[in-house]
């Protein structure tokens, strides 16, 4: 604690932050943002998060409608309910943003992520890695005598669990796409 009683590591980096805490509970939300596919649009979205001190836990972006020039940005973010509301409102006022959906509150949704894991090892460890990959329905997409590259798709916590299991078995590299999400049903 400094003389000015600013907590170390607190979210309020600035003396300007006079916000009340409407609720202290940090929530994790998945936002789907439909944007005009124009140069700089991703920089605008990311710049909003960094400029206003919001968190990005995961971010994916790709064009989803070539004729309509639309891209879909899926952002997993966390903050108090008031901060989440503010993030949505701020995203909504970016000019090339068409729609902002909070999948966490707009009804049930399905979230998936793709990841690739390189595992190096020989002997029992190699066999065990292959066995576990089978249980997790991960595919082998590359193989040498010392390494496997597994491809796994699923909810982020399933991928986390797989990573935890692979670590003692010689996990050397990880590539994750980040979350893609859609609402269930109509």
């Amino acid at each position, binding site marked *: 604690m400094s003389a000015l*009683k600013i907590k170390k590591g607190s979210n309020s980096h600035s003396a300007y932050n006079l916000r009340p805490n409407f609720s202290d509970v940090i929530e994790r939300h998945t936002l789907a943002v439909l944007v005009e596919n124009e140069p*700089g649009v991703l920089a605008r979205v990311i710049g909003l998060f960094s400029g206003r001190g919001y968190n990005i836990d995961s971010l994916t972006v790709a064009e989803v409608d070539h004729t309509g020039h639309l891209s879909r940005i899926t952002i997993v973010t966390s903050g108090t309910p008031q901060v989440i509301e503010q993030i949505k*409102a701020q995203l909504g006022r970016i000019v090339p943003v068409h729609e902002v959906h909070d999948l966490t509150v707009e009804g049930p949704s399905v979230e998936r992520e793709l990841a690739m894991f390189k595992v190096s090892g020989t002997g029992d460890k190699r066999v065990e890695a292959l066995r576990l990959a089978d249980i997790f329905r991960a595919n082998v997409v590359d193989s040498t005598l010392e390494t496997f590259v597994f491809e796994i798709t699923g909810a982020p916590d399933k991928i986390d669990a797989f990573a935890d299991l692979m670590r003692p078995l010689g996990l050397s590299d990880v590539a994750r796409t980040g979350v893609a999400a859609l609402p269930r049903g109509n």
Partner: protein
Amino acid sequence: MTRKMTGAKMIVQALIDQGVDTVFGYPGGAVLPIYDEVFQQNSIKHVLVRHEQGAVHAAEGYARSTGKPGVVLVTSGPGATNAVTGLTDALLDSIPLVVLTGQVPTFMIGSDAFQEADTVGITRPCTKHNWLVKDTDKLGAVLHEAFHVAISGRPGPVLVDIPKDVQFATGTYTPKKPSTSHYQPPVKGDMEEITELVAAIEHARRPVFYTGGGVINSGPAASQLLRELVEATGFPITSTLMGLGAYPASGDKWLGMLGMHGLYEANMAMHDCDLMINIGARFDDRITGVVDLFSPKSKKAHIDIDPSSINKIIRIDIPIVGDVGHVLEDLLKVWKSRGRKTNSEAVGKWWKQIEEWRAVNCLKFEQSGKIIKPQYALSRLEALTKKYDRYITTEVGQHQMWAAQYLRFEDPNRWMTSGGLGTMGYGFPASIGVQMAHPDALVINVAGEASWLMNMQEMGTAMQYGLPVKQFILNNERLGMVRQWQELLHGERYSQSWSESLPDFVKLAEAFGAKGIICSDPDDLDDAIMEMLNYDGPVIFDCLVEKHENCFPMIPSGKAHNDMMLSGANTQGMIDAKGSVLV
């Protein structure tokens, strides 16, 4: 109808089609083709400023005094980077601007070419939106969309970056037509919320209107509707710095400005009210003081065209997203149809309380002796210019707050000041922009000597275009507001807040061919002000004032509205360690 023309010609054509009559700018290598087209036409006046920051502030002055977007034309690299302060200023105060920048040719972008800067990258966070146009065929449509974005919804600055080869190339011009873009912010408020606000108005015992720049931005009709609403309900009204003039200062419901240097009665009414009706203001930290203690007993309604303003700082009970003019129209309609009810007995009692606060007379000061008090200087300026339809700009600091306290505004669009960003150097170029838009009006920039020096090069512009802007400088040879905070918060250690070697402002005026007036005696002040008003041309008025005067009332950092300092007598220990972190 489509026509073939060069990109440069397209730019001028688009400006004409948008009804632009004045452009503020400065030429350079990357905009020469555009300047060539400017040379060959008579529809648009070009004002050559002396620094690109001046161009942007001048365009802001033009925009704020007319309600039309201000237009700026500057070159690439340093031209664009010099415009950044003005863009940020306009973004924070929601001023519509269209800024056109030249760029190195498309095939050289990214090569660190001469006068190349990543203009769209640099200005992304300080514009509402920006574009880099790489295809001449798209230029016309982008320019028209730029105007649409600048003025739609919450207004703001936009920037179009145009590489030099795009200016030279020939393409097809897309003429102006109603915008088909997806960006169409709704202007009508939700009727259910409006009806809820009407019900709150009917039952309120201690109501207050808290209005802001959104009323001005919504246009003169919104100010008229606001006046009608205030008169019909009889509720008291206060305003932010940005909203002065929307309701006339001569109106008997007027409490004066609120906030850090606002009036005692305005801040007390905000603290003790039971219904706060925020119309086009944004709960800025200069207004709220410490938010935990902000107006603890009130139900709060908020009318704002920008949904992100609502619940950003203060929790709102009745949120209404919409344009002030449209919402007030519907609000009045519903309120009238339900029988124009208010709790007049309770509101009468509320007014009695307010009258007690008013009786404190928080703006009183004593002019005695041979040194001019800044408050006295502004009171005399007010008295002597009252009969004019006058436009006031300011710089930033103590003089700005005194101007907001002692000058009285009867109409919207007459008060141009840098509110959100607090940009020293804003007022002088802004006064040039205002005078360009209103050639026959009295335009005065109330300044401090330190702020004024930040853009003093614009004297050249004022002289070149014969703009009779009056520079009313309250000269205390100090950075007055910095000095005040050092006195209150930093043990009277006046670090770097004293300007030595100030120019002789009379000689400075004369060097530019303008008139200089110096006044140091309160007995001479009226005559000197009259001399300024009667001179047909730019004037620098060097008003030597009390050097250590502090600006009161003041809500110290970290305190609530009902915890104001009314004078310098009770400043000891008012600001604690927690408050001193705040700006």
